[in-house]
């Protein structure tokens, strides 16, 4: 069988809705695209734990501290699960982590910003995890089976995180004026990063969509996010800092203003306000704990 015939046969499997397992033959383009996508996802989970982690010592009650700690642990756990999935596609976990902490690979734009108040914890927990859940649910039907299994677990945990974030939000918006202002201020600061989160309009040829590694376009996901969260924000008397944003009843879709995409590219290229600080923290941990990896690698296999 020629390479092209194998690609065609693989394409037929994808088109028939079959799932691909780690040991299956796959075209180089598929392997590379899946690896890059899942590696970026894993990086984002690991880095995404940091903005919220900064608020663990300052959580307002013991219960909030416990639940936030558990959530941060979950996010790091997602990173571990996803690095394992990515590893089977041909790049070692050590290499992926080394590339991340040395700035050679990317992580999601929303995790490059500072968390200034407890209101930010509410916004991250409810709206950013909500945005993540919209995109992650769309991956439950992806073509790469190990990724789908990971996403099943991750989506279950993210649904819990969403409730956790919603609970904190409701506490703030039904509280004092100062609490409401704190939440509104956080929404104002995070709105543009959230719009960036869904990414720029999808390219005409998106390799990820073509191979079923992703199943829905950026616009489609953004619209779902608007429909789910904007009416809830309005119900809570919280405004959205986009003067153009409105639901066009005739067209059945949301109109919104394009954010500043230059700012987005600056951030994803590693020039965000907190990029260096957070990568520095991860790199410090990675270097300090090198001895644990060495100890692990040095344990001789047991005689059968």
């Amino acid at each position, binding site marked *: 069988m020629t390479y092209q015939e194998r690609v065609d046969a693989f394409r037929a499997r994808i088109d028939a809705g079959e799932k691909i397992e780690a040991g299956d033959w796959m075209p180089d383009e598929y392997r590379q695209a899946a690896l890059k996508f899942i590696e970026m996802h894993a990086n984002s989970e690991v880095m995404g734990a940091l903005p919220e982690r900064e608020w663990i010592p300052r959580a307002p009650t013991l*219960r909030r501290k*416990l*639940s936030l700690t*558990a959530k941060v*642990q*979950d996010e790091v*756990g997602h990173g*571990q*699960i996803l690095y*394992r*999935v990515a*590893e*089977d596609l041909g790049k070692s*976990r050590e290499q992926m982590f080394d590339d991340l902490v040395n700035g050679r690979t990317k992580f999601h734009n929303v995790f490059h910003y500072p968390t200034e108040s407890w209101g930010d914890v509410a916004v991250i927990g409810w709206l950013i995890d909500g945005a993540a859940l919209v995109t992650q649910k769309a991956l439950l039907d992806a073509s790469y089976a*190990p990724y789908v*299994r*990971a996403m099943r*677990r991750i989506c*279950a*945990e993210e*649904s*819990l995180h969403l*409730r*956790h974030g*919603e*609970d904190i939000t*409701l506490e703030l*918006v*039904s509280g004092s004026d100062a609490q409401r202002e704190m939440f509104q201020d956080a929404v104002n600061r995070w709105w543009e990063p959230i719009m960036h989160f869904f990414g720029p309009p999808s390219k005409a040829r998106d390799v990820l969509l073509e191979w079923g590694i992703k199943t829905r376009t950026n616009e489609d996901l953004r619209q779902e996010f608007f*429909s*789910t969260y*904007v*009416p*809830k*924000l*309005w*119900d*809570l*008397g*919280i*405004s959205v800092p986009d003067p153009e944003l*409105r*639901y*066009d*009843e005739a067209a*059945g879709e949301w109109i919104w203003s394009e954010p500043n995409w230059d700012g987005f590219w600056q951030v994803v290229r590693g020039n965000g306000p907190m990029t260096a600080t957070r990568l520095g923290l991860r790199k410090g941990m990675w270097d300090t704990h090198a001895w644990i990896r060495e100890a*692990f*690698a040095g*344990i001789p*296999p*047991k005689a059968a």
Partner: protein
Amino acid sequence: MDVWDVLGKRTVTDEWTLVGGVKAPDVEMALLLARETHFRHKEGVAYAVRRRGEAADALVPGTWPAETLGGVTDRSYRRQEAYAGVGAKLKRVAAQLAERGLRIDRPRPPGSGS
């Protein structure tokens, strides 16, 4: 280092289902990592690992009984049950805020909102 497939059972009558994988130098460490990574939130009643590539019957079940898997102290904040009623709370808070005249009333998709 070996790759281990992680399997679990949601209920006692279920078959073993593949849920993920871990990398570990030996079976004890594989079981520990499997438990921490995949069964922290009471996801099942039994867990097991199998070295990748070995026969189906080479499964090594973990020894933690169902009642202790996922922890025995009150860690409900790790699970959905701790947030039961948040949806109803949203409706309640929204109604209060509407009474205070704070609701932003703008066109929205049918059936959306609190």
